[in-house]
Every structure is written in structure tokens, then in C-alpha cells.
């Protein structure tokens, strides 16, 4: 593997489309070559930002209704669509079967990688939640004494997801609260933990609210949004598209802000001090 090979394989590498062996060879080179490492990181950062940009184009509200009014009933229509779409599919599947979803650490930012691994392990293990409840107050009470910081009340529903419980995790040398949500048959986890001593990825990709920006990462088949507010890292991990998860993060941020304004005495405490 030389620099030229890296350049040619950067995309396949970022997409997780290389074999384990190829990916390992690339990682090896990147460990030793700062120039390539910089290039690969730049590609990764720019591309995740581009995904967020295109995700901002939303269809007008009434578009579906306009379309639905003009749809055939599906029987005996005159229109012909060209033959089989699926020629060559088998070959394509064979080609990509070896593609494994990889996470790669050119410059490992633990805050980005670790929560995704935790989530994947949880999902694959089919473990139950530590506590199952749809009631935010009950969940807060359950965390009381288990983490050494004050948690914001979990939003109970945010657009397509609803609160189903929580887990207490331990990673990055600290206790982590995980608010667990459900989206259809998939789990969504919002991890909350202290920022102290952690390297936070550059906050590039998406603006969640006034003064809150997040970075968006794709790892191991999951999408991961990371943002920091008032000394806490919020890490939202789910098997969702960039658009869906950024919308979700925005919804959550808005609800956190609301609940803070509703009950927040934090400012006045600071003023007194």
C-alpha cells in the first residue's frame, strides 16, 4: 500500500466497501502517513456535510396529495415500463457481499466511535433495557443516584420516535445515561455524559438550534449526531438516514430548551453565586 493506493481507495474505505484485509492495510498506512490521514479525514468531513446540506431540501407539504390524485389504480394501465430492472443484480450482490461495514479510525475520536460500538453491541445482544418506561419523570427518578450529574428530562415523544426506557452505560471512563427511544422496530439511543477531558469532533455538519451545532457521522451502519451543551455531550445514535436523525436531533434540542425554560433556575443560581 502506498499513498497512491490510498487515494484510489479512500471512498470505498469510507463507505465500508472494502474487505477486512484491504481496510486493515489502509488503516496501517494511515497510521504511519499523516498526509493521507489528513486527506481521508477531509473527505469524510466534507462528505458528511454535503449529506446534511442535501437533506435540507424538503418536499412541499401538499406534494403527496397532488400526486396521489393522479395515480392509476394499478390494473390494466396502458403504460409500459421497460423490461426487467434486475438484470445483473445477482452479480452485483455477489460483488458487494464482501463489503463489510467498517469503522475506521484515521484519527480516532473516541466520542464518535465508542457510542456507536456500544449501540451496536446492545442491538446485537438483544438485551432488555435496564428500565422500561414511557414516563420521563419515572426515568429521571430511576437515574437518580446512578449518574453523578443532573440529567435533563427526556422528551417523551419527538416526531417519529417515542421514549421506551433507559440504560446505564459505562464508557470513556465515565458513567453515561442512555435514553432509549423506539422508531418502528428500531432502537434509537440518546447518550448523555460529561464533556470533561474528551476531544470533541469539530462541530461542522448541522445547526440544530440557535447556538447549537452538531457533527454527523456514519459508522458501522449507524448514523451518529454529536453535540455539546453546557458541558455535556449529547450523542444520538440510530440506524436512520442523515436527514431523519438530524431532524430528530433538532426536535430533541428544541424540547430540551423548552423544558429548561419552563423549569430552569440555573441562571439565577449562577447570579446568586
Amino acid at each position, binding site marked *: 500500500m502506498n499513498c497512491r493506493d490510498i487515494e484510489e481507495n479512500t471512498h470505498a474505505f469510507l463507505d465500508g466497501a472494502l474487505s477486512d484485509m484491504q481496510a486493515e492495510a489502509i488503516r496501517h498506512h494511515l497510521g504511519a502517513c499523516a498526509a493521507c490521514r489528513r486527506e481521508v479525514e477531509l473527505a469524510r468531513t466534507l462528505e458528511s456535510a454535503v449529506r446534511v446540506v442535501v437533506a435540507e431540501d424538503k418536499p412541499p407539504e401538499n406534494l403527496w396529495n397532488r400526486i396521489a390524485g393522479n395515480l392509476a389504480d394499478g390494473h390494466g394501465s396502458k403504460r409500459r415500463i421497460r423490461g426487467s430492472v434486475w438484470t445483473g443484480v445477482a452479480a452485483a450482490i455477489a460483488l*458487494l457481499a464482501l463489503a463489510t461495514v467498517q469503522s475506521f479510525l484515521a484519527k480516532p475520536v473516541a466520542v464518535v466511535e465508542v457510542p456507536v460500538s456500544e449501540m451496536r453491541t446492545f442491538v446485537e445482544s438483544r438485551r432488555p433495557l435496564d428500565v422500561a418506561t414511557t414516563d420521563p419523570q419515572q426515568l429521571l427518578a430511576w437515574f437518580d443516584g446512578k449518574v453523578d450529574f443532573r440529567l435533563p428530562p427526556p422528551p417523551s415523544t419527538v416526531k417519529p420516535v417515542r421514549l421506551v426506557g433507559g440504560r446505564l452505560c459505562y464508557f470513556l471512563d465515565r458513567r453515561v445515561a442512555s435514553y432509549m427511544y423506539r422508531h418502528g422496530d428500531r432502537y434509537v439511543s440518546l447518550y448523555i455524559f460529561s464533556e470533561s477531558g474528551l476531544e470533541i469532533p469539530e462541530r461542522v455538519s448541522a445547526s440544530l438550534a440557535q447556538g447549537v451545532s452538531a457533527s454527523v457521522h456514519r459508522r458501522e451502519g449507524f448514523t451518529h449526531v454529536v453535540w455539546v451543551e453546557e458541558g455535556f455531550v449529547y450523542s444520538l445514535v440510530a440506524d436512520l438516514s442523515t436527514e431523519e436523525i438530524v431532524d430528530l436531533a433538532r426536535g430533541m434540542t428544541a424540547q430540551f430548551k423548552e423544558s429548561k425554560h419552563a423549569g430552569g433556575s440555573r441562571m439565577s443560581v449562577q447570579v446568586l453565586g
Partner: protein
Amino acid sequence: MADLVERLRKRWTREKFERQTRALLPGLYRAAYRLAGQPADAEDLVHDTYVKAFAAYDRADIRGEADCRAWLTRIMVNTYRDRYRRHQRSPEVQRSPEEAEVMSIEGAPLADPAARAEDSQFARAAKEAIDGLPEDLRIVVVLFFSQEMSYREIAEAVDCPVGTVMSRLYRGRRLLRERLQDHAPDGKVASKVDSNTKLKVVR
């Protein structure tokens, strides 16, 4: 017998097809927008895609969600190619490095910009960079970023081998990167605004 079971399993009711495809609307619209270049054309393109799909789905061999999306996308790409290609601004136009530089300086936020403004500055550059790609590259790049499709899905949608998709994506993404690398998406527009920033920082 197995064959019959297979066929029954495969058949889509209209209700199921509608449910499935309605969920695809945001992604298709995003792709249509980047392909057609403006909202009105994007709406028409998506509209025609659905009309064609609903006229033919009961004869198509669609196996699952991903197949369904690839199939609709394929209809959309073909419709786009047939109809919009001629109206397209010359896709071969590529910005010279000087022009790209002018663009980034013009668009660079100078003083204490809100995150929003930075986002839209990068967003503008990103969209222009995509729009400026040569046609064949642009289509696969759009499907890749706006629908987050796999190589295989894109290959089905644009009707070419996976290898071709990969090489077009390779070239398209390289070009995007070249055009965007001066627009760090967090607003730290590399060396170009550094001089401004430093003026403020140096006491």
C-alpha cells in the same frame, strides 16, 4: 409449489405499494431537486415518476424496500434523462481554480457569523459544486448523497454495472472535494479568512 408461494409472496397490493412508496417521497424529491435544479421541475419530475410507477408496479419484479426505491429511482432517472436533459445548463462547464477562489472569498463570512450563515455559505458552495459536475457523474453523486443509496442500488437505478457506478462516484466525489476543500463546513474557510480572524485576535 415453491414457485407459487414465491410468486404470492412477491405480489404487491396497491395499498402496500402506496405505503412503501409514499415513504420514499422525501428522498426522491431531494434527488429530483438536485437533478432538475429547481423546485417546480423537481415536483413535476417526482409527480411523473409516481404516475409511471403506479401504472406498472403490478408487473414489476420488486422484492423489498430497497428494490422498490431503486426501481422508482430508475424510473425517475429515465424520466429526467428523457425530458430535462436538453434544458440542462452545459454540464461540462468546470470552474477554473481562480473562479473557485473568487467564489470562496466572496462567500466567506467575515465577522462573527452565526452558525446558520456559515451553513448556508457552505450549502451554497456544495450545491454549486454538485450542479457543476458532468452529467453522468452528477447523477450518481446525487443518488449517493441525497438518497444515501448503496452502489448496488445506484447501479440498478442508472442501469449500469456496479463497477461503472464506482468509477463515476470516484471521479465525482474527487471533483466535489477539489471544489469544496476551501470551504471548511464549519466556516473556518481555511487560510483565506484566517488573515481576517488574526486581525481580530492579535491584540
